[in-house]
């Protein structure tokens, strides 16, 4: 979230699309209700009428996988009805930037596409540069090659009829949503979006979100209270685990995992440190080497020296252009590429797309380590449906771990609040906290490398700084301090003196010469000489809900990011009733500002040369309406899901996203317009269960409330198939099948798409064969191995199925 949960109360219009917040993030609704009490409007857009929809001022449906068409129509409406916030758009976004001659868009494909590789050469999307090397601009937004005019042209194709024929949403409903939401383009008004996996789990996932980001920028809704682009993240610490980068492509703090072509630290830092020639651009990532070197110092401590490139080459490198993501990982596993595998606190046998492939992949392993609090479908895969243990070679270790209240440490919520948790009890039996298991395991590995004089490349194993125990036990405070970072020698920076061993007060003090460490620069400021900031418990008494002294928030306790766009060029808030920050003549007051530089203009209207543009993380300093870094095009374009019910994309002759990954094993099948699978399928969650159900299927209360897998369908579809409510039926895709109880409701309605009736069904993915015995299995047995070309998040929200009486 660019904003945070409580901030939803400051909104004037809340769009919930791609999420069902009332059921899946129930307590978020406290703040939706709060906003509505003050007159805010709530819009719910979802293929199914949900409990979120039941609370909304306006609800309408769309077919799964057509969000860009829906929102593209909104962009057209905003521009053509002059609902955009021109001052914001011209001053703070790249709407004014002028595109070079090589950029064009033709019949669903952007310039630079290389059919052989299925990738774009993004050089074709470059801006025209002035003599200083900065993008040329036209702040009147009239130049026909400026981003704004090209945006207008691109979405002029998204007329109501074409959008409605694609989404199945009635035209008048589209207009109602567009009108309600675009009213927040007025100065002082705020609109917000609450989205979740309903937007990410598509082959156009990132572009779904970018379409909304473009709308938010057109309406001036970024950086302000009650605005922003807000991902409702689904796991208690998925924000923190992402920040600390348990992901192949990034190192903690969103630094890049080095590629094989970057042979030295200097080459690595040069590659990832952006440059600008514009003195008004803060270009925050210019600090990259300070963060990367400080991270290497946290990895390897004293062993990391300038002479050995701070241990840069001790860490593994990726091949250039190769993806090592989840889908690729299980594809390789299925092909037998791995001997060993850790499934730590996760149940991929139910959670990943195409679970049959995942389950078969596990049989190819020599050894599997599964750490969990309950038995689960991954650890016990060898005795699952269709498996013959006598034929499965995999050696399996199932290690019991503590639950959250049996250990001490922090987690980071969706609003980026890092909150400390305390230990309340001991784990059962000999179960141990995960940190304890890691520590003990790594000590044993290290011991083996110590003893073996012929060990292969032992340096990183032996040199990793691993002193995070106290009295023999994992000490989360020690690690929290390492993540924050230390001064490693006595030093004076910016006139302030620090001692060796002092905790670094904020990332502005980090250095690229090895004199500081920081395990994650974004968390620098979270645990300082003043103490553990995440344990703070002082509530805000009045104000807009920032709660600056409750817990801690990255970066540097800033509660609303991009907040320097919440003010005009004089530093006055667009909304005086809910100011995030304001300039008092000598400094900013309110939230921690996105940099302390003065406003763009002096009180007399002359430019202030000491100022910086508000979007400091972009080298050019402007928010990107034109996204030149995207894998699948600088403007979002509607493409059908890889499996879809239509033969034609009404917006172009390009049916699906040309850049998406596909896999080629016999277990990877994709069926579009295939009569055997005529219905659109989607997956979702219910309030009483969570993810694959490991943490909810074993609780009697929760299981009683939602005991088994169901498949929800419209009364029309049930009638067509002769299915009765409550009847056990099969749901089938080309990859698998699940038995489920039919739930016939009027919450799903048939869509009219391109003149044809299209039915959609949905089912939750919380179940698995281990427990309860008659509860059903994972809905991911049905979903395909394909995903977004930017993130490779699987397309589990739109796929093709059939339903069959048993």
């Amino acid at each position, binding site marked *: 979230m660019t904003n945070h949960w409580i901030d939803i109360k400051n909104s004037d219009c809340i769009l919930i699309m791609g999420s069902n917040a009332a059921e899946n993030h*129930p307590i978020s609704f406290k703040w939706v209700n709060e906003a509505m009490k003050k007159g805010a409007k709530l819009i719910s857009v979802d293929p199914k009428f949900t409990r979120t929809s039941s*609370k909304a001022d306006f609800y309408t449906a769309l077919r799964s996988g057509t969000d860009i068409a829906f929102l593209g129509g909104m962009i057209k409406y905003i521009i053509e009805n002059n609902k955009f916030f021109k001052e914001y758009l011209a001053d703070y976004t790249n709407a004014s930037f002028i595109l070079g001659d090589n950029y064009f868009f033709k019949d669903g494909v952007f310039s630079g596409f290389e059919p052989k590789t299925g990738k774009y050469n993004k050089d074709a999307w470059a801006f025209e540069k002035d003599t200083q090397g900065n993008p040329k601009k036209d702040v009147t937004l009239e130049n026909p090659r400026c981003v704004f005019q090209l945006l207008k042209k691109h979405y002029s194709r998204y007329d109501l009829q074409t959008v409605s024929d694609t989404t199945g949403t009635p035209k008048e409903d589209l207009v109602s949503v567009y009108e309600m939401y675009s009213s927040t383009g007025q100065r002082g008004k705020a609109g917000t979006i609450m989205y979740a996996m309903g937007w990410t789990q598509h082959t156009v996932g990132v572009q779904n979100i970018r379409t909304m980001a473009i709308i938010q920028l057109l309406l001036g809704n970024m950086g302000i209270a009650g605005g922003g682009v807000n991902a409702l993240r689904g796991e*208690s610490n998925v924000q*923190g685990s992402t920040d600390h980068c348990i992901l192949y492509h990034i190192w903690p703090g969103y630094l890049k995992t080095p590629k094989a072509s970057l042979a030295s630290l200097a080459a690595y830092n040069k590659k990832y440190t952006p440059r600008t020639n514009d003195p008004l651009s803060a270009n925050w990532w210019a600090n990259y080497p300070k963060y990367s070197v400080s991270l290497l110092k946290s990895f390897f401590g004293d062993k990391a020296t300038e002479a050995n490139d701070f241990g840069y080459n001790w860490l593994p490198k990726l091949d250039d252009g190769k993806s090592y993501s989840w889908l690729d990982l299980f594809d390789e596993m299925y092909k037998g590429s791995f001997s060993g595998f850790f499934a730590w606190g996760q149940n991929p046998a139910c959670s990943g797309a195409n679970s049959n492939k995942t389950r078969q992949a596990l049989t190819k392993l020599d050894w599997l380590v599964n750490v969990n609090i309950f038995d689960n479908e991954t650890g016990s895969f060898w005795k699952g449906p269709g498996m013959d243990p006598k034929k499965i070679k995999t050696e399996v*270790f199932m290690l019991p771990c503590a639950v959250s209240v049996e250990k001490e*440490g922090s987690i980071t919520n969706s609003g980026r609040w890092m909150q400390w948790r305390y230990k309340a009890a001991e784990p059962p039996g000999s179960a141990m906290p995960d940190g304890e298991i890691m520590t003990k395991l790594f000590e044993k590995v290290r011991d083996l490398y110590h003893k073996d004089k012929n060990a292969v490349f032992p340096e990183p*194993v032996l040199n990793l700084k691993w002193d995070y125990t106290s009295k023999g036990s994992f000490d989360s405070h020690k690690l929290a301090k390492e993540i924050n970072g230390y001064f490693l020698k006595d030093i004076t920076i910016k006139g302030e003196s620090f001692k060796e061993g002092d905790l670094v007060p904020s990332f502005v003090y980090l250095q690229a010469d090895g004199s500081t460490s920081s395990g994650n620069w974004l968390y620098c400021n979270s645990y300082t000489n003043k103490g553990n900031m995440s344990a703070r418990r002082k509530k805000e008494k009045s104000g807009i809900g920032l709660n600056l002294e409750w817990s801690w928030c990255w970066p540097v306790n800033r509660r609303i990011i991009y907040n320097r766009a919440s003010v005009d060029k004089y530093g006055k808030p667009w909304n005086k009733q809910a100011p995030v920050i304001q300039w008092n003549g000598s400094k900013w007051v309110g939230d921690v500002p996105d940099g302390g530089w003065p406003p763009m203009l002096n009180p007399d209207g002359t430019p202030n040369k000491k100022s910086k543009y508000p979007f400091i993380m972009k080298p050019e300093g402007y928010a990107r309406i034109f996204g030149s870094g995207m894998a699948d095009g600088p403007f979002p374009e509607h493409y059908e899901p890889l499996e879809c019910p239509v033969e034609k994309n009404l917006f172009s002759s390009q049916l699906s996203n040309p850049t998406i990954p596909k896999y080629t094993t016999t277990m990877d099948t994709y069926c579009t317009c295939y009569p055997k699978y005529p219905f659109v399928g989607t997956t979702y969650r219910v309030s009483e269960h969570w993810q694959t159900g490991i943490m909810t299927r074993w*609780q009697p209360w929760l299981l009683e409330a939602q005991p088994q897998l169901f498949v929800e369908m419209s009364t029309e579809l049930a009638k067509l198939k002769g299915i009765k409510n409550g009847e056990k039926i099969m749901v089938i895709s080309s990859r698998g099948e699940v038995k489920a109880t039919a739930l016939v409701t009027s919450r799903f309605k048939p869509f009219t798409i391109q003149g044809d009736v299209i039915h959609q069904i949905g089912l939750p993915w919380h179940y698995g064969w281990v427990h309860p015995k008659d509860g059903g299995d994972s809905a991911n047995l049905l979903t395909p191995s394909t995903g977004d070309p930017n993130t490779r998040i699987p397309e589990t929200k739109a796929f093709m199925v059939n339903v069959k009486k048993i």
Partner: protein
Amino acid sequence: MRISRRDFFKISAGAAAGVMAFGLGMDLTPVKSYAQTLKIRYAKESTTICPYCAVGCGIIVHTSKGADGRVINTEGDPEHPINEGSLCSKGAALSQLINNENRLSTPLYRKPYSSSWQKVSWDWALQKIALNIKHTRDATFTYKNGKGQIVNRTEGIAHIGSAALDNEECWAIQAMMRAMGLVYIEHQARI
């Protein structure tokens, strides 16, 4: 405040519909003061954050002062600014996650081609895993790729998980896996 099964269903249904007002951190004024004295006499109180979704609701945990040191109650933290005492059905059932007879409590091992688990000691399990790691890493370690570029990695081991770990554990696990040379490192955020 002990919640009965009946209370649970009544209130959690309301919370889900967005009409919770107090949710399971409900206003129990008539019984509150009595319950409070019991809690203080028999339990020590600590705070936690809900382990389910990422709203980050505050929860109070009461641990018995008795010899068993069990968690005897969990409830929404009324002081927490996000949830102000409210919890959804999952957060309200936290005590059943903690005190659950189905929890794994000892390491289990399944031999190749075996049809059953056997209980093993931590020391044995971790030693065997460490040997597996070393064996696989050393056998599959790649210093240079096909282009002759330094890569210093193993593609013989993969890792996933976890968004259920604390931040400090997340940092530790990625450091450990990267130090061992893994490149296939993923978790829930990817799906």
